[in-house]
């Protein structure tokens, strides 16, 4: 019984045991906690230390400080703009175009499978 629980996931060319990995994660968390203990002891809440330092500029309101979803990965999407242009063109919301994709796939598969 205990053997079936401990048996690893066989993947054909290796194995994996989630329990061992879970143990490793717990050990890693412990290590992190210990390292955290070495941190500065003179940090105090509610004083000047907690304020964000924005090169001397005044702090924004909380609403503006939050990094919004559209701001994340801006560089990535900008770099792959040509790919995204094609992809956005595909998802243009036109029902006829969606049906056309279906027809295109059927036609292509007809040519591939039907000819052979």
């Amino acid at each position: 019984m205990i053997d079936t629980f401990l048996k690893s996931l066989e993947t054909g060319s290796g194995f994996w045991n989630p329990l061992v990995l879970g143990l490793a994660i717990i050990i890693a968390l412990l290590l992190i906690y210990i390292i955290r203990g070495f941190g500065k002891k003179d940090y105090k809440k509610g004083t000047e230390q907690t304020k964000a330092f924005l090169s001397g500029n005044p702090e924004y309101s909380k609403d503006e400080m939050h990094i919004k979803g559209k701001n994340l990965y801006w560089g990535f999407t900008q770099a792959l703009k040509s790919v995204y242009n094609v992809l956005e063109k595909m998802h243009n919301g036109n029902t006829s175009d969606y049906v056309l994709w279906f027809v295109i796939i059927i036609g292509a598969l007809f040519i591939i499978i039907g000819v052979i």
Partner: protein
Amino acid sequence: MTMIFNIPFIAVVAMIFIGLYAVLFKRNLVKMVIGISIIESGVNLFLITLGYREGGVVPIFTSAPSEVVKNAPGSMVLPVPQALTLTSIVIGVAVLALMLSLIMHIYEHYGTLDVRKIRGPEE
């Protein structure tokens, strides 16, 4: 005597492609629905045509002449495709009703039936 050029099957294909043309190239939503309805009819005709047997009569024994019954089953058309077509017709009317009621709501919200102007909000 067999049918020249398989006219019924050609008609089936013609109906399917007329309907597909309406769905692909027409911009009016009601026209697209009409196209789907035509494809539906084409497939129904296809099923019925598959079940037709040369010189056969309908497989109903109440009205069948006696020589037909003697030669049964060779002298009767196939019953299964007709049953399938009945189901298919019901499916057709169900889909049609749902699509048209959606169209009425879409017109209420968008004020148009042009397929290019109707799209979800892509931020």
